[in-house]
């Protein structure tokens, strides 16, 4: 294994990243229409397990949160809570147009348009919805980012928690959730 | 000067200069007569052109004459061949002016061609008149082109 940048990444980090990128545990939680693309990706047709992508039932077991399409404000509240329950390191993949700039729900009264205002996103996948190949491409991209040490959205979230929280509270009117404290 | 007593090239040039001066005077008169601004403009252009030719002839270097020989192909639209001859005193409008000019250039061409035939034995004069004929021929062509572009715009 090659070590490119000794100043920032120690060998230990490298080993950790190797392990992380080959065991991407995905939380089985679909927010929008894109959830329908997950079964073909996981099952034998595309067999995402080839890449160590496995579904997990609870947030505390998962590494990757898939935002599979539009996020209504109501769902956003649950997604934030789920994301905050996940263990570090954790990654977010945004599926399709909706997570980038609203997609076809751009003028809806109850869906957010720009996902990275509310939570950090590591990889975006183009499409409406992305096909399973694109989903796999997204995971491969995430692996590359982890290898390069660039998939650090979770660190950004901790550092800019106040900013994210302010944005979240702007759309979620009744914030009756525990504020996690890292 | 009469065409009969042309003996040398200098005399021939002198003869040509006289022809150009006559033309210049004629156009000067037409400028005065014309009422149509377009015709006026045309006659001014033609007068200036003739004056330019006269100057060219006056400063002509006899020895370097052959090099100036214009070898460009001149095609013939035959417009002037069938135009009505206009008398100078009748000319008022732009179209009549153009017709007159085209006819004049054509006649000058025929005249110089004839002279060239007459002085076929004298190489210098033959050369000179041939070039002049060719020159007038291209002027005729220029006039025909203008006629084609303006008067014959819809024809």
């Amino acid at each position, binding site marked *: 294994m090659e070590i490119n940048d000794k100043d920032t990444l120690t060998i230990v980090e490298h080993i950790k990243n190797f392990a992380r990128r080959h065991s991407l545990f995905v939380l089985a939680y679909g927010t929008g229409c894109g959830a329908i693309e997950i079964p073909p990706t996981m099952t*034998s*047709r*595309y*067999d995402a397990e*080839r890449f160590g992508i496995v579904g997990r039932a609870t947030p505390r077991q998962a590494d990757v949160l898939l935002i599979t399409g539009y996020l209504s404000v109501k769902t956003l509240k649950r997604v934030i809570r789920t994301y905050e329950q996940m263990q570090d390191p954790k990654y977010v993949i945004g599926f399709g*147009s909706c997570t*980038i*700039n*609203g*997609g*076809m729900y*751009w*003028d809806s009264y109850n869906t957010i348009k*720009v996902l*990275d205002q509310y939570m950090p*996103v*590591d*990889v*975006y*996948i*183009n*499409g*409406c919805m*992305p*096909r*399973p*190949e*694109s989903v*796999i*491409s997204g995971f*491969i*991209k995430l692996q590359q*980012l982890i290898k390069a040490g660039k998939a650090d959205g979770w660190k950004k979230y901790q550092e800019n928690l106040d900013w994210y929280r302010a944005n979240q509270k702007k759309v979620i009117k009744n914030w009756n959730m525990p504020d996690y404290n890292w | 000067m009469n065409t009969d007593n042309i003996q040398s090239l200098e005399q021939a040039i002198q003869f040509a200069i006289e022809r150009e001066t006559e033309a210049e005077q004629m156009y000067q008169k037409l400028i005065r007569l014309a*009422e*149509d*601004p*377009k015709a*006026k*403009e045309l006659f001014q252009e033609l007068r200036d052109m003739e004056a330019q030719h006269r100057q060219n002839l006056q400063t002509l270097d006899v020895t370097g004459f052959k090099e100036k020989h214009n070898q460009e192909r001149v*095609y*013939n*639209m*035959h417009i002037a*061949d*069938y*135009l*009505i001859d206009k008398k100078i005193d009748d000319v008022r*409008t*732009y*179209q009549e002016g153009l*017709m007159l000019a085209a006819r004049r250039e054509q006649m000058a061409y025929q005249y110089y061609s004839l002279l060239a035939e007459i002085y076929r034995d004298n190489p210098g004069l033959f050369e000179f008149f041939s070039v002049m004929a060719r020159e007038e021929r291209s002027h005729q062509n220029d006039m025909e*082109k203008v006629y*084609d*572009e*303006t*008067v*014959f*715009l*819809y*024809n």
Partner: protein
Amino acid sequence: MEFSLKGMLNPLLALQQAGKRPHTIQFPFEEKKVAERYRGLHFNDLEACIGCGTCSTICQNEAIDMVEINPGDSENAKPGDSGLRPRVDNGRCCWCALCVEVCPSGSLSLTTHYNYVSEDANSFLWTPGVSNPDGHKELSFVSDTSHSLLDYARVPMRELEGKERIKSFAEVVLGYADEEAKKEAARCIGCSICTEVCPVHMHIPEYISAIEHGNNEDAIRIIYDNNPIGETCGKVCTRRCEEVCPLGARGEAIAIRWLKRYATEKAENAEIIREIVNPDIKPPNGKKVGIIGAGPSGLTVAYYLALRGFDVTIYEAKAKAGGMIMYGIPKYRLPLDSLDKQVEYMQSVGVKIHFNTKVGEQISFTEIEKNHDAVFIGIGYEVPYTIGIDGENLENSIQAVNFLRDINADKHVDIGNRVAVIGGGNVAIDAARVSRRLGAEVTILYRRREEDMPADWEEIEGAKHEGVIIKTQAIPLNVVDDGSGRVKGIRYGNARMVTDEKGGRPRPELIEGDEHILELYTIIGAIGQEADYSFIPEDIKEKIGFKSGRIVTNEWQQTSVPHIFAGGDIVNRTADAISAVADGYKAVKGIEQFIFAK
């Protein structure tokens, strides 16, 4: 318990599958083939695109913006192109491909390329064709005229049959019915590309939209906003707008002219026009403007100045207003009452017209100059060029302009039964078609080829349908007389075409010896016209700048003599009614500026 070997070994049957190839698609190591018309990311052919913005308008997600690729593109673009190009926000796009379906030029398409992943959310803003210059290699969903949301076929205009036409001067074009007009108007994509090439910049998409919504009165008001002879233009305009119509790139352009005709014809007389347009007439401001010539440019100046409160007087040499559109255009194209009605309307808003008043005879130019704060000259090109060959002055050798004028003034002209028209412009075709209606056999002699003819192709087609013979590459040599001073025939020679080495139009060169004689009764010359400036005094003529016979003006139609303005054929080279109206419209602003700046 009985032991069964079979039961023990049965699970091993699963090993049968061991040698089989899995049906898992080994992405990304092997590519997956996509469907034939798969809709992936966009590609735009930047050369074919004209920036009409239809893609942007139809997009339900507002995903497409029209942007300049390089700064200043929209200023430098040529007419018929807005200079803008679509940019797609893939954070909005849902690949419905409506934009491709409605792309009139067919430049926008979707590719098979869909697999795009990035950590940078801003990289999803794509300018098709710039972001993927090689996109043309992987096109899949392309626009197709055979099944498109756009209707590429024009609603056909009903016309009289060729045989019927030559029996009378009845109008050839019958006009759209309500349903036809609405259907045709519904084809318009409202892009407004056409407004720029229209010399007057009429509000074309707006009035077409009004027609489509069945609101003809609004359409009339919009038309009269900057064109007071909309009905005339609706019948005889040279319609440069239709040449740039994006639908014309792959189908038939919107029938803009016929739609204008349909709307304006809804106002049947001057009172109704007045009622519908209901113009806002400003109170008189005491300034006087004199106009020479009641042609399209003069009428336009008069109408809009009258609305602005000026005291406007037109001096017209003939008995009726309209100039060349009254006396030059035959009745089967523009019925006389149509123009009369428009002039009557203009008079009702305060335009004064002195008929039968030739400047230089009944009234002097100096007098007009003295009595008015500004003068507008719009005399047009009325004096014909002669054929210029021997025999042109014989009896029955006439000029098309005079011929058409006499016919429109209901005078009798004896043209006999065999007529030749010399020329290939619209005037020549008009003369030929009028002669045909008078019962003559007509031949058009034209020096060039048919494709070089300056006349509208529709006019040429119309003439052919009516049985006019068009002899091209025929140069008239001289008119043959019958010995008693009458025309007996015309001698013409055939020509070959020579390309102009300087890039001009090809020139005909006479083939010597190939001559023929055409026997006829009347010969009509229609080779061109020029202006008659004899009424302008010499001292003013000196001051006004002329360039190749046309008056030189600034952008507001002002000559170098500040209070004299000019427009129409004597200023512009295009020689059509709509450019004259445009000149008039500009002169209105110029005159207003000039008078109030004083």
